[in-house]
Each structure stands twice: as structure tokens, then as C-alpha cells.
């Protein structure tokens, strides 16, 4: 079986709260929030589901952009927002529970904001 194609809607940081509010009002649940470093930018995916219908909302930001928390609408978002702060260094404003960088304790600060490791043939992993 081929699984359904997934659509991603891009939005601006300034319109994030309004877009998330629409999902909340329509009864979607928050599946996850995940961050990806693409070049010098960061993509943040907000994934929602309702009756197995999957929607992905995406913002693309620079490393110094402050992102508003959506924990006012989705209380459980704090776990994902703290995670993207601790692993990527994304600043999130207004989280309901702010661990201030102690949710994931890593030896390297913000490890996923570091450049990708380049592997050449013959390198030991």
C-alpha cells in the first residue's frame, strides 16, 4: 500500500500563533514539534492529527530568531519546545514549563546546531 502524501504548509513566525489556533479550534491534536537544521537556517515542523488526517505546519527561521511558545493552546508543547531549545539552541518565548536548558543534558551545548560531521571513505565511524 502506498501511504498518503503529506502536505506541509509554510508560515511566518508572526503568523504561527494564529495558524496553530486554527488547528486547536478544529480539534486537532499536537503530534510533535521537531526541528531540522538546513544550512544556516532552522526548519521547525508543528505536526497535527485529527481522525488520522495529518497536517504539518512549518516555519523557517535563523538561529537568533525568538519563537513564540504554543503552550497556551497546546499545554503539552513544552516538552518539544524545551527539546528544541536544548538540542538546537532555539529560543522559545513564554513556555509554560521552562527547563532553562536542563531537559537534555548534553556534553556539547546545542549539539544539533553544530555543523554536520563529514565522513569520508575510510574514516572510522
Amino acid at each position, binding site marked *: *500500500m*502506498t*501511504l498518503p502524501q*503529506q502536505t506541509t504548509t509554510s508560515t511566518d513566525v508572526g503568523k504561527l500563533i494564529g495558524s496553530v489556533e486554527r488547528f486547536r479550534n478544529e480539534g486537532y*491534536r*499536537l*503530534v*510533535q514539534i*521537531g*526541528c*531540522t*537544521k*538546513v544550512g544556516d537556517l532552522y526548519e521547525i*515542523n508543528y*505536526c497535527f*492529527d485529527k481522525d*488520522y488526517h*495529518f497536517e*504539518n505546519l512549518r516555519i523557517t527561521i535563523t538561529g537568533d530568531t525568538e519563537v513564540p511558545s504554543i503552550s497556551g493552546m*497546546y*499545554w*503539552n508543547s*513544552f*516538552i*518539544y519546545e524545551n527539546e528544541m531549545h*536544548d538540542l538546537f539552541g532555539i529560543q522559545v518565548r513564554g513556555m509554560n*514549563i521552562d*527547563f532553562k536548558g*536542563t*531537559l*537534555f*543534558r*548534553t556534553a556539547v551545548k546545542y*549539539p*544539533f546546531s553544530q555543523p*554536520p*560531521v563529514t*565522513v569520508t571513505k575510510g574514516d572510522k*565511524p
Partner: protein
Amino acid sequence: MTKQIIVPFGPQHPVLPEPIHLDLVLEDETVVDVIPSIGYIHRGFEKLVEKREFPEYVYVAERTCGICSFIHGATYCQGIEQIMNIEVPERAQYLRVIWSEFSRLHSHLLWLGLFADSFGFENLFMGVWKTRERVLDFMEETTGGRVIQGTSKIGGVRRDISSERLDQMVKDLDVLDQEMKELTTVFLHDDSVRHRLRNVGTISRDDAYHLGACGPTGRGSGVAVDARKLGYGAYDRLNVQVVTDSCGDCYSRCAVRAKELFTSTDLIRQAAKKIPEGPVDVKVTGAPDGEYFMRAEQPRGELVHYLKGNGTRFLVRSRIRTPTLSNIPPLIKMLQGCELADVPVIVLSIDPCISCTER
């Protein structure tokens, strides 16, 4: 106003197989608030995607969890196959279902044993784990591994199960069902178990849904969401029964898992009956260029593998959202208002897998 005190719970605690720390804010013996902490065993699996070529990363994905490792591997493979438009042979899809459901049996039996241990029913704990051995034996016999199976690969599976073995497996399921029936009767009908679990750690359907509860944690509150209904693998050709309960307490979550044991054996029987002959893998060429959020139903709930490739042998991103991560916020809600003595049972009722969560 009653004086509030903070009691630390974990990260090491007899009831916790893995480290999670909770700061319990108490008024007398009642928990009024909870602050969770994880991060003790963060392993950086997702970062490893930069150092392993995408076919090799299956081995890393599998090691995310030592209980449902097969489902992690299969979910990763299905995500890559989706991006690359790979048509997996039908037999491989059915085999993935069979091993996935055996993983669920293994996980639920392991949890039921630990849960019995948490409320002091040691005899039941040992009985459940004895039955679990049958499941592990089957996994070992058909894959070579009891914990890490290593049978999923991009484009199919590495091993086949002969028709004779499948026939024997179906016969063995009758014995397994009989043993599980006896054990689950105790979980569902014993007065001491019911007394310990009823009305403990209750969460309403609305709270469970909006706080992101998934798997048996959500279904125990009546949230009828099961990712197998998405139809990945061969699930679209099988009759998947979604087990729910409405009370939302520890007993309900236990009852959902107990009943799901039998839906798993039913799915294995259905798959064994419908599995066609044919190859179990296809040759894969090229590299993934695109992205996909692959969702699957782990024993603990909905698993998401987000995969993004750029046409090279190394993925740009592998992000694993495990069910326990999603079940931590509902856990906070369950604990608010409970008695201190109930905390271990409530924490265990979400079947926390911290290794999965930390990745």
C-alpha cells in the same frame, strides 16, 4: 494554607526500570504538582545519522529501544521506502506485521509483569514473564535475536519464515492464548488488583486527547486512536480491532494492554492465513531525496520517524518522536491530586520507556 514540600522521585527507584526524575509538590500526602526531568541517558542517536549511510542507519534506529526494536527498524525502513517510492514485496509486509505483533506481545507481557511487581503481586509477575519467554523464543527462532532482531531492511526483510513454521506458530498461539487468558483473568477480575488500580491516576478523555496521550495511555481514556489504522505494512488488509476503555484510570490502561494481547495474536493468525508466497525483498538503488513523517503503532503508542534526505547517502535529519515523550504531559495530569503512595503505580501505568525517549 497547608505547607507544601517537594519530594524527589527517581531517577533511581525500585519501580523504575529506567531513569526519570519527578519533583512531587505535596500538601500532606497529596500531590498537587509535578515537574518531570529526563536527560540522564541522552544518547544522541539522531546525530548519528550524519555518520551512517541511510541503509546502515537501520541498525541505529533498531537500537532506539530494546523492547520494540523491530518496530523502530521497520518504521524507519518504511519511511525511507515511502520517500524513494519503493514497492516492498507483499510477503515482506506480512512478515513485518507478524514480527511487529510479536514485539507488542513481548512488550505488553513485560509491562504486565512489571506492573504486577509494582503493586506487590510477585507471583503474577513471574507467571507473566514465564509466558513472555514463549514470545521471545519465537522471535529468536525466526530472526536469530531475542532483543534486537535485525530483520528489517530497506526494500523488505532479511529473513523468511517457512510455511511449516508458520503453521506451527499458529498452533503455538493457541497455547499462548490459553496461558494469557489465565493471567489476564487475574489482572481484570482479581479484587486486590482492582482495588489497587481503580480510580487511581484518572485522566479524562478530553485531557488525554489534548495533552497528546497516545497508545494504551490514550485508549484507556477512550481516545480511539491506533496508528495501525493508517494501513502501513499489511495492516490495511487485516481487521485491526482498536481496544478502548472509558474510565481513564490505571485499571483501564492495564485492561487495554491485557485485551490487546489477544488482538495481537488475532492479527498474527490473520497474517499467517493471508501471507502470499514470493520474494521478501527488492533491490534498492539511489538515495532518498525528500521527507516523510512515518507513523507506526508501537506497543506504547504512536511512533513518528521524521526522515529527510537530500539525494546523498547521508540523511539530513532523522527525528524520532517516541510515545513516552508524548505521554509525559498526560502523566503530569494523572499525578495531580493523587496520593504519594500511588505515584509508582501511576508512573508505571503509562509504560514509560526512557531509553526510547532520550534517543
